[in-house]
């Protein structure tokens, strides 16, 4: 491999890999030959002692600073640095800045702890910023206020239908009689197109709450009509039974049951 590398390159690599202390004499000689006279110096060396350690560098000024001139630095070579010193180690004089009873592990733990604290407070803040912005996509208070409709149960006598509007759609509420409940329960599931028991469709058997929208093409069925004693859609002739289940006609599904609840204390049905 080595033979394939151009000799000049090989030479240069070898040259730079060599320790500087063993650099060719020609090179050091040229540095050494810099005549002192080229730098007209007002020489003032600064030697500082910190905790007994002597600074090995000197800073030389070419001129004193006056009101109109800047201090100019001329960096002199460090005379006393040993060529064998590993420069990746901090020089000894920096010991002056070291803490007296310093523990590497505690220091590292402290730094990780601080950054971790910064992160988790930041994470909590970021989460709140995001959620606070997402809240703007939620339904506004006036929409939510209209999203529920209350009906007084006492105002609907047994065996009567009530139609009311909820979110722009009609809602059928029927207060069923005992015979009607028995009739709804007597139907076997195998006869049904969309099999659902009556218990699945009601929370209390006396109260049937459904969306009054035909599952065929969205007409409003007529109550107490049709071959099954329930609802009949005048548009295309779908027949629903007393539980609102499709029995005959083009509609594929039973009438939809919305979310609703009973407010027993006030005797009300709350739709929505």
């Amino acid at each position: 491999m080595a033979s394939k590398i151009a000799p000049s390159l090989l030479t240069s690599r070898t040259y730079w890999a060599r320790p500087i202390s063993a650099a060719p004499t020609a090179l050091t000689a040229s540095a050494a030959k810099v005549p002192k006279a080229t730098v007209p110096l007002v020489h003032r060396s600064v030697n500082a002692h910190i905790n007994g350690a002597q600074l090995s560098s000197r800073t030389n000024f070419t001129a004193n600073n006056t009101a109109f001139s800047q201090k100019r630095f001329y960096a002199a070579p460090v005379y006393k640095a040993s060529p064998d010193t590993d420069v990746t180690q901090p020089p000894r004089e920096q010991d002056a800045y070291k803490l007296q009873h310093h523990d590497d592990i505690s220091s590292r733990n402290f730094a990780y702890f601080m950054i971790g604290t910064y992160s988790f407070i930041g994470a909590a803040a970021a989460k709140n910023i995001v959620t606070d912005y997402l809240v703007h996509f939620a339904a506004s208070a006036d929409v939510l206020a209209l999203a529920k409709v209350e009906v007084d149960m006492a105002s609907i006598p047994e065996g009567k239908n009530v139609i009311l509007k909820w979110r722009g759609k009609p809602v059928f509420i029927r207060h069923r009689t005992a015979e009607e409940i028995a009739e709804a329960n007597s139907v076997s599931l195998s006869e049904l197109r969309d099999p659902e028991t009556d218990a699945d469709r009601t929370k209390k058997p006396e109260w049937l709450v459904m969306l009054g929208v035909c599952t065929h093409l969205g007409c409003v069925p007529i109550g107490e009509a049709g071959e099954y004693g329930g609802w009949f859609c005048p548009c295309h002739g779908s027949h629903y039974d007393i539980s609102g289940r499709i029995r005959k006609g083009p509609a594929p599904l039973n009438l939809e049951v919305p979310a609703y609840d009973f407010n027993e204390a006030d005797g009300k049905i709350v739709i929505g």
Partner: protein
Amino acid sequence: MFSRAAYTTGTRAFRAPSFAQGRMASTQAGPGPFGADRKAAIAWFTKAAAGSAILGYGVSNYIATDERIAPLSKALSDSVNALQKKADDLGLKLPFTVAHAFSTADHGLHPPHYPWDHYKPWKTYDHASIRRGFQVYKEVCSACHSMEYIHYRNLVGVSHTEAEAKELAAEYEYKDGPNDVGEMFMRPGKLTDAMPAPYPNEEAARAANGGAYPPDLSCIVRARHGEEDYIFSLLLGYCDPPAGVTVREGLHYNPYFPGGAIAMARALYDEVCEYDDGTPNNASQLAKDVTTFLSWASYPEHDERKKMGLKTLAISTMLLGLSVWWKRFKWSYIKSRKIVYKPGKFDEV
């Protein structure tokens, strides 16, 4: 190529030294023009700023009050006026204008600042006061003023329970419909209904009030200069017109109202409402409560907003402190490094 400059990489063992230390260590610069170190420089600047502030205040005060200078400024303004007059005669427009005196009669008397508790950054509205204020609105103001953006549901959890709000709503009948046969019908109010409007439309309101339109009160505190202070002062500010001021028939003199003549008659007198929580019902208490209520109506999000803001400030302060620490941590290597010159093995000649 003669030499190699190497950077000490530093380790975590090094904490950032203070700025002063770092600078001294890196350049041996000695005292600067503002003192030996940063502390001295800050002290220097603080003293300089304080000194110039005192000096400037003294000098400007002296100039402003000195009677020897007064003729000078008068001569200046006279010459400007003369120039303006010349320009007016010639039909020219000058890039400066002559100031006109401010008239309290035209703009309304500036209301004093009252110590509203909810002006403090950490205070919510006094909800008992909102409740009393709603009572005043309902019994007095609502005879002429609508509040079309405040619904009964807005009162729930603010000043009334849900049951109370439903009861209040049901006192009025609202038009609804159409029903199954396409007719509109009247039904008792629900939580989703707004405060009942006293007049069907603006024309009816103007006709009933001598041409003046009682403004909707939903956002009135936000919509008037002086906000709460103005509303409160206006409600109690009715008095006899001063000498030389005549008020047209049907109007009333109120110095806080721009122009001084307001169509609204004084509405709040002592004991026009009866509070059920035992609060004294003199006119100023009524005015304070109804102003608080109207302020809430204008800023219904006020309490939540303040709480959120204070939380945000607390979190931001923590994050600011930590980011200052973090910056110092990251910069400590740079601030505390020392550049060392490592020569080849040769002797200085």
